[in-house]
């Protein structure tokens, strides 16, 4: 029987994220692997052939006008005979694919597992694209209303505002942070490519209404791109990146209802956390996944940010980032409102969150998104920001412990990981 192994990340890279990106998935992926050859010269796909598997991270076959699009990639990369499968878990596809790779290496079934994520979203009109995303809601009940995901998220955000006395401006502060962090990350980010300048809270507040409290600039934009994360066991991590590897010290995955309206009294949640939780305002799956990951990494849930140096989280909307702070246990001793106003998640704060720009700044090509968050966190923990970013304005110096969060549905599937510098 294979033996349990410790699991590491030994490298990672993304294509630029943009809409459209004007590329096919083959060259997006080949570019990422060749970039890895450059960044991690000891790594070669031959090792995947001999000691590994590939996990593909891809959300929507509707967008790719192709079923099993990863079959195209796999033989394009020369990997016939190498085991492969694809993970789709909504917006948490990237995090879930990372989780699958983690599980494979942890279980000793593979030693080198590239997680390859991609999404084409510009293959259809923007409105068709929103519709495709909305069919991840329950189509028997929700899709026919003509609402899109932003509309559902806004409803949750409004509950959160009321419960925690958070304002539109406080959400806007988060959006500004992420947009402006992306400017330092540079030309790989959609905000740099598309807007190319720093924004202010007024810019967010004055942008058009999408669904109260969310305006255009509170939302991530549709984007295309690919990303690769190199997951390995200890032996390969030491061989590939003796000075630039991080350990996956904790991995948590959890789930919640597909329909947000079903979260007041779900027996499973009531038994775990008491009546009424999470309701519409909280992300129960995030809390649960964080508890699991923290426990593995020996971090307490309450005020866990004090044990973390940097975080890359799933800010599909500025409001969801605030909800995530709460669901990660960061706001047990300080209300989420003060957490934002005291600038804890800003670059100068105690837990810089989304220094890479997050989804709002970097982009959200679904299958690649959670991997982008992983890669940005990995760069922070391995001192690679000066090499990778346009400026070091968004570098978290001497970061040792990082958190990554990937999030789907209206909080329907969520993964959290703790990464540790070694």
């Amino acid at each position, binding site marked *: 029987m294979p033996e349990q192994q410790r699991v590491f990340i030994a490298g990672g890279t993304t294509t630029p994220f943009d809409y459209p990106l004007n590329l096919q998935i083959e060259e997006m992926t080949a570019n990422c692997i060749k970039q890895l050859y450059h960044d991690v010269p000891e790594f070669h796909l031959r090792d995947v052939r001999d000691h590994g598997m590939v996990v593909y991270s891809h959300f929507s076959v509707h967008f790719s006008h192709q079923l099993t699009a990863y079959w195209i990639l796999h033989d394009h990369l020369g990997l016939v005979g190498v085991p492969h499968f694809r993970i789709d878990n909504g917006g948490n596809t990237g995090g879930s694919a990372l989780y699958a790779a983690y599980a494979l290496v942890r279980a000793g079934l593979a030693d080198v597992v590239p997680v390859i994520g991609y999404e084409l979203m510009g293959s259809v009109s923007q409105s*068709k694209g929103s519709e495709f995303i909305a069919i991840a809601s329950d189509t028997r009940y929700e899709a026919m209303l003509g609402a899109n995901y932003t509309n559902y998220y806004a409803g949750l955000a409004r509950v959160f505002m009321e419960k925690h006395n958070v304002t539109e401006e406080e959400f806007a502060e988060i959006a500004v942070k992420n947009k402006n962090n992306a400017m330092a990350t540079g030309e790989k980010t959609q905000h740099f490519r598309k807007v190319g300048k720093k924004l202010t809270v007024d810019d967010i507040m004055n942008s058009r209404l999408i669904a109260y409290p969310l305006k255009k600039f509170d939302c991530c934009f549709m984007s295309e791109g690919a990303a690769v994360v190199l997951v390995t066991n200890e032996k390969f991590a030491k061989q590939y990146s003796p000075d630039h590897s991080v350990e996956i010290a904790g991995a948590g995955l959890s789930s919640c209802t597909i329909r947000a309206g079903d979260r007041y009294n779900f027996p499973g949640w009531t038994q775990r956390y008491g009546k009424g939780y999470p309701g519409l305002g909280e992300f129960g799956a995030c809390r649960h996944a964080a508890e699991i990951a923290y426990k593995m990494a020996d971090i307490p849930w309450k005020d866990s940010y004090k044990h973390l140096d940097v975080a890359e989280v799933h800010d599909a909307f500025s409001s969801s980032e605030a909800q995530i702070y709460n669901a990660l246990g960061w706001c047990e001793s300080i209300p989420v409102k003060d957490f934002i106003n005291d600038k804890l998640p800003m670059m100068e704060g105690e837990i810089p969150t989304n220094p890479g720009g997050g989804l709002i700044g970097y982009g959200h090509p679904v299958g690649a998104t959670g991997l982008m968050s992983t890669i940005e966190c990995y760069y922070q923990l391995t001192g690679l920001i000066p090499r990778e970013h346009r400026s070091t304005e968004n570098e978290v110096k001497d970061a040792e412990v990082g958190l990554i969060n990937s999030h789907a549905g209206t909080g329907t599937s969520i993964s959290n990981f703790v990464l540790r510098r070694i």
Partner: protein
Amino acid sequence: MNNMKKDLHPTPFNKEFRWNAWKEIQPLVPEQGWVWQNVRSGEAGGKIWVEQQIYYDMLYTFRLGALSPYSKGLLDGKLLGTKCPKCGDITFPPRVNCWNLDCDLEITNWVEMPKKGILHAWTICGFSAKSALKKLPFVLAYVLIGESKTAIANILHISEPWHTETNMPVVVKIVPVEDRVGNLIDFWFEPDPSWKPGPMTSEKERIKELCDPVYKWVATLR
């Protein structure tokens, strides 16, 4: 084993179906499959780039199976939820097996829900899917109907959307019988006639201000 089998949802034989209740609502959009549209080429960064456009369509049949009474209920102008005979949990939208692990996937019973509820969560939409653009700005609301342990999302019709308030009582309105399709879009919410909105607040003022350009934009839509 035989006792267990009685607890399963039945699987009908196709030959037993009598679709006498089938209603041809309108001629179906013909399916066309992959239909070639356009090709173009251009230059950027000193290279040639090509785009092709191909139309692809499909007609979905949603077979509602055990959920059919819910849909038939809407056709008949009723809201049907479910109740677990073991634990008593009522849910609307319905669940044809109980969600409580301790109830061993007990098959639930259909119960008629009252046409009123409490609005629990809401947003004012300023943008939406294409099909709903002309209705903007509209209120998306989650409402707890009767004793349901779940809330259902639908549209709240309210003349001044900024007056939407958490916990306001709402009533369910159902479209005329000839327009019913057995889907969520057969009904909507309205404020309970006894309800009066509270005074303007700074949040209501702000929402009103955000809605203003939306009304103007929608007026320009064809």
